[in-house]
């Protein structure tokens, strides 16, 4: 996806507005690039990535966050950081860009903390 296509997704607009990304175009561009690369890796658009984490109960139709699917995303993120060659704090920070996108779309996926 191009940057423009990415930015047109509702989930990305929500992220940008909620996290205040638009205040710093350089930061926004860098973060969008990480998200776009991650989405390319898992072959999902940003909106699909959010939807992937949210399931509905068969009985009631009630929405809930899938634990298994969030674990899957964490596994994908681990693979992604390795493939990108990121290490140490950079690996934590960049993977948390994707988690930030998900958090601002109502999906908390807990990740590591840099304590170095």
């Amino acid at each position, binding site marked *: 996806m191009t940057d423009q296509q990415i930015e047109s997704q509702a989930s990305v607009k929500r992220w940008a507005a909620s*996290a205040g990304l638009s205040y710093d175009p350089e930061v926004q561009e860098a973060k969008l690039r990480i998200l776009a690369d991650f989405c390319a890796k898992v072959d999902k658009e940003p909106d699909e990535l959010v939807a992937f984490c949210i399931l509905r109960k068969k009985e009631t139709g009630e929405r809930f966050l899938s634990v298994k699917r969030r674990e899957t995303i964490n596994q994908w993120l681990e693979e992604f950081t390795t493939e990108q060659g990121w290490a140490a*704090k950079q690996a*934590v*920070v960049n993977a*948390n*860009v994707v*988690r*930030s996108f998900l*958090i601002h779309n109502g999906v*908390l996926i*807990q*990740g*590591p*903390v*840099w*304590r170095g």
Partner: protein
Amino acid sequence: MEFKQVVGNRRTIRFFDPNRPVEEEKIQVMLEAANRASRAVNADFAKAIVCYRDELSDEVREQMKTPTTTVQIDLAPVTIFWYGDTSFVNGAQGRLKELVDLGALPVTHGWTHGYVDDLVYPQVLEPLSKDQLAVTWAVSVETGLAIAQAMLAGVDEGLGVGLHAFNPAAVKDILKVPDHWVPMWILLVGYPAEDAKGGGQRPRRKLSDSFYRGQYGNPWTEIPEVTERLTSEGMIQEPMPADASQRMAEIKQLADRFGLPL
């Protein structure tokens, strides 16, 4: 620190300095404060297991997390796991008689060994011990009192504290928790990486919203001079300002430091 200042200074700290060790001496102060708490039938309701962060594997810490207890577990150098002991009735008769002998439970109030054996134990404690709801209520209240004292003692020692839920199943086997202990909370302890005052006191409703005089519906009337004194003595402090820009800037700085999502 003065008591009112301690009460006023306490915040739920969520950003701990992960690399500043917490002295065991200070933890002992907290445990002793818990041990001095008021307790029914002089029972040891509150049980705690102190763990330094690196004694728990990354995997276990991950499993302990809940939707509301997140990275603070990774940042806090110490986790105190609090449990309530449901076997508190065991030995209650003996402990009550000890208090009778010491004069803590005075005869002027009806206390004798016979009163313990013939009335208090068979008619109050034994039935209570068989009522699961009542046991859970008693254990929760009594353990909460002890936890509160430990928490305030930690603040008095210059530490940051935060009480949170945890996933008890993840640690039961590792900590060798007995079956008759009921999980309560975890108390995270460490030196704050954030402003120890957390940007101000959290919003609180006025006393009259929750407290009454004589009967429900007759709200407690605040005495302005007392409110003023508590403010000057530090129990009542500046609330978090509606303009949260300073706090948000601090969160951004902490997020940058720890690589957290923002």
